[in-house]
Structures are given as C-alpha cells and as structure tokens.
C-alpha cells in the first residue's frame, strides 16, 4: 500500500499497527551491539534496558523465559551483543528490541559468566583469605575428587609413587565435565565432609578447554568448596587456567601433580621437621648440659686457688722467717763488726805506744841531763885547771925555794929596808919551807 499516493487518513492505532507489521517483518532476526543503560529487572522477571552508541539508542526488553537462560548478568555500561526481533510497543509508540539472546561484546558468554560469578562470590566473601584453612601439617589420608579414569588421579598416584610417600588415597570418582558434573562434584565434597575419612581433599581434573573445565566454574562447586570443613586443594587444568573453584579452595595447585607434590611435600617436610625438632631438643639439652658442665668445671678449676694462695703465704712466711734470721744475724754481726773495729782501735791506741814514746823522750832527756851536767863540771874543771896551773907557775914560793926569804915585821909589814928596823926587833922570816922567828941583832948599812 502506497500511503503517500492519496491522502488516506489513518488512525494512530492503524498506523502503528502498519509500522509494527513492517518492522516485525523486516527485522525478525537482528544482531545489534551497544552499551547497556537504564537496566532494570523488576519483580516481573523481565529485563528492561537501553542499548546505545554515540548516535542513537534502542529500547530493549528480554522476557523472563530468556532471562533464565542467561549465563551472566547484564549491567549498565556493559557492551552487549543482542539477538532478537524489532517490535513496537503500541501504547507508547516506541519500537524496541525483544531480546532472545545476549552475550557480552568482546568476550564469550562463558567468560562473562565466569567473571560475573567470580565477582559475585568475591563480594560475598567466598575467596576471603580469612576463610581459608591451613593444610593439615600431617595429612595421612587424602581424598581425591576427580574422574576415576582421568589424567588427574593418574598423575597424583605417579607423584606419590615417585616420592615414596606413605599416604592413603581415597578416590571419590565423579564426572568432571558435561551436564551435571558440577552438582556431582559439589555433592562429593559434601559427602567427603560427612564421612570424615580424610584429612584433606584434592578436587580437580586435567586440563581442557574452557567448556571442559566449566564444571569447576559453577557456583554449586564453589559453594560446596566453601562449605567444606576439610581443607580443599583445587587442582584444575593447567597452570594458566584459574577456575572459580581455585579461588574458593584453601589452596590452589596449578595441576593435580602439583597438588600431590604439595601434600607429599608437607608430609616429608613434616618428617624432616620432626627430625629437626628432635635433634634440636637433644642438642638444646645437651648443649645446656655441656655449658653447665663447662661452667661447673671452670668453677671447680677456679676452686684450686687456696693451694696457690697457701703456697704464696708459705713462701711469704718462709721469706719473712729467713729475713728474720738474717736480720737477727745481721744485728749481732753488725754489732760484732762495730765492736771489733772499736776494740782494734782501742788496742791500737793503747797507752803502750804513748808510754813507749814517753820512755824514749824520758831516756833522751835523762841522757841530756846527765851529759849537760857532766859537761858543765868538765868545763868548769877545765877552766879551773888552767887557772890553777897558771897560779902554780906564778907561785912566789919558787923565789923562796931559791933561798930567798921574806922578812916581816911583827905587825906583818914586809921589811924591805933596815931603816925599818930597830935592833931587837922580831922578824918573821918566811922561807920556802916554813917560817922562822928571828931577832934583829945588828943593823948594817943603814943608809944604803
């Protein structure tokens, strides 16, 4: 119908019905990409949102039945690719896309689902470190939840064999991929907890595609792991693949082999630790005993001191005794020396010498005394002798001896002339020998 050919006046409803027919006919199946805004999910269960890009926007709705099948939850700002048909909402006169399928733009739906679940569980606290349990230091029995025929159990047993670890393994066989795998895994975890036969759980499988590993990204598994009282080691796929299960688990091993290694290592380490502790225990006590022994020995050796002290004291006493004797001997010796010196000086100065000197002096003086006197006498004798001799020579008696006589008057006067005489006078004649008294008889030569 050419609505532009003639002026045909249509009612709004009519026109709207016409437009819907056109749109529904031509846009029965379209893919459109845009950014989500104004997202709302009322209690009716239908999802309403707008897709937009820089130039336009498109009203979208997804009915409850389709929403149920979504692996992820759309959100404002999310870039989406939507598949659906265009229809018109008569009452408002708006056209809208009735979405049958949605997927995140850029990533696959599974990834988006993974991310969203991860985000949600993280928000809920399922990944909190605080909730994680430590592995038992000594796991004696290990529960392994995996396929009985898969690579995982094979790898785990190989590791145990290789490491000679004495551990018990209890396998709980489950499907690890495909429909129903996740609930089975979850149930297995719960069963293991209930049975209480093991100390730790290894949950996992070998590597595969994202789809293969998907069971481990399912919420049911995550929640079972979270619920588990037994510590859970998640060991899914290869090293680069992380699953939700990995995040929730108490420990994540990159591979089942690695999980086995962890468990074994802890067991071996434990043995080493015990040995070390036992060694330290012994060493600590022995070194303490040795130290105490050394200390006691050192002290005991130091106790030998009194002998040395006694030796020193004895030496001192001996020394003093010796000095005492010496001093006493010196006392008498010095006095003896001093005394002997004095005595010898005394003897040297004995009066003997003085008397001897005096004797000599006296002898000399006595000798001189005698000689002087003798000399004197001799001298006088000599002087006298010569005078006496001269006198002898001069003696007048010599004249008399020749016959001369000296006549002396009675008065003694020597008569030298007759004049002096009178007859009858008495004369005294001195002769050489003797005298004669004579009388004068006659006088002659009176004048001569």
């Amino acid at each position, binding site marked *: 119908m050419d609505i532009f050919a003639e002026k045909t006046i249509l009612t709004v409803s009519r026109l709207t019905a016409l437009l819907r027919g056109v749109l529904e006919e031509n846009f029965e199946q379209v893919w459109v990409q845009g950014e989500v805004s104004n997202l709302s999910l009322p209690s009716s269960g239908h999802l309403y949102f707008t897709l937009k890009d820089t130039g336009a926007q498109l009203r979208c709705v997804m009915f409850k039945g389709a929403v149920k099948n979504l692996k992820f939850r759309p959100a404002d700002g999310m870039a989406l690719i939507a598949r659906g048909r265009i229809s018109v909402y008569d009452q408002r006169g708006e056209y809208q896309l009735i979405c049958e399928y949605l997927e995140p733009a850029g990533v696959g739906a599974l990834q988006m689902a993974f991310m969203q679940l991860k985000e949600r569980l993280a928000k809920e606290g399922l990944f909190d470190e605080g909730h994680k349990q430590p592995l*038992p*230091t*000594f796991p*004696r029995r290990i*529960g392994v939840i995996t396929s*009985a*025929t898969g690579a995982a*159990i*094979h790898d785990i*047993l190989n590791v*145990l064999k290789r490491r000679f*670890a*004495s*551990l*018990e*393994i*209890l*396998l*709980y*066989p489950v499907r690890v991929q495909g429909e129903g795998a996740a609930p089975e895994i979850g149930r297995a975890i719960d*069963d293991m907890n209930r*049975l209480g*036969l093991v100390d730790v759980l290894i949950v996992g499988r070998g590597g595969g595609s994202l789809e293969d590993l998907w069971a481990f990204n399912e919420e049911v598994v995550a929640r079972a792991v979270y619920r588990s009282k037994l510590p859970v080691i998640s060991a899914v796929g290869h090293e680069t693949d992380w699953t939700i299960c990995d995040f929730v688990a108490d420990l994540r091993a990159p591979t089942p082999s690695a999980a086995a290694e962890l468990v074994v290592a802890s*067991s071996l380490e*434990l*043995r080493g*630790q*015990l040995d070390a*502790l*036992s060694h*330290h*225990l012994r060493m*600590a*006590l022995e070194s*303490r005993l040795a130290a*105490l022994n050394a200390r006691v020995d050192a002290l005991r050796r130091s106790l030998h001191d009194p002998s040395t002290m006694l030796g020193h004291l004895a030496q001192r006493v001996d020394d003093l005794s010796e000095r005492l004797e010496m001093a006493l001997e010196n006392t008498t010796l010095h006095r003896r020396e001093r005394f002997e010196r004095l005595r010898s000086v005394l003897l040297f100065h004995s009066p003997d010498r003085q008397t001897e000197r005096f004797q000599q002096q006296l002898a000399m003086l006595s000798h001189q005394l005698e000689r002087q006197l003798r000399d004197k006498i001799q001298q006088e004798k000599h002087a006298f002798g010569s005078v006496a001799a001269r006198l002898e020579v001069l003696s007048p008696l010599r004249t008399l001896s020749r016959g001369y006589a000296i006549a002396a008057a009675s008065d003694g006067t020597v008569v030298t002339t007759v004049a002096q005489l009178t007859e009858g006078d008495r004369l005294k004649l001195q002769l050489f020998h003797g005298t004669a008294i004579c009388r004068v008889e006659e006088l002659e030569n009176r004048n001569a």
Partner: protein
Amino acid sequence: MATEKFETSLKKLEEIVRRLESGSLSLEDSLKAFEEGVKHSSFCAKKLDEAERRVEVLLKRKDGTFAREPFEPEEG
C-alpha cells in the same frame, strides 16, 4: 590420650624446644621439658610411621552408603 593429635604434639615439641633453647629453664625443668619433648617426639614419629601407602576408591551403594575398595588405576 589417644585423641591427642599429631599436630598438637608436634606443636608442644616445638614449644619445648623453644623453651629449652631459650636457656631460661632450670636444670630440673630442662630435664622435665626434655623428657616431655622426647615423649612428644616419639609420639609424632610413631604417628608418622603408622601411615601406609594405600589407594582406595569410594563406592556409593544404592542405599546411599559408601564402600571402600582398593583402587587400581587403568594404565594410560
């Protein structure tokens, strides 16, 4: 008690070693601690020695109970 756990015992051993090494114990206490340590050490060693290498598979019966059986993995 028999319910003493390996971990508890090991922890006590550790504690004892630490106390002994600190040198703060008297000789008598050191000896007591050592004696206790030896007991713990022996206990732990015994526990470690008890473990055997055994691989079993858990089979779920129809009635919901479980049974353990030796597990022989298939080659490959």
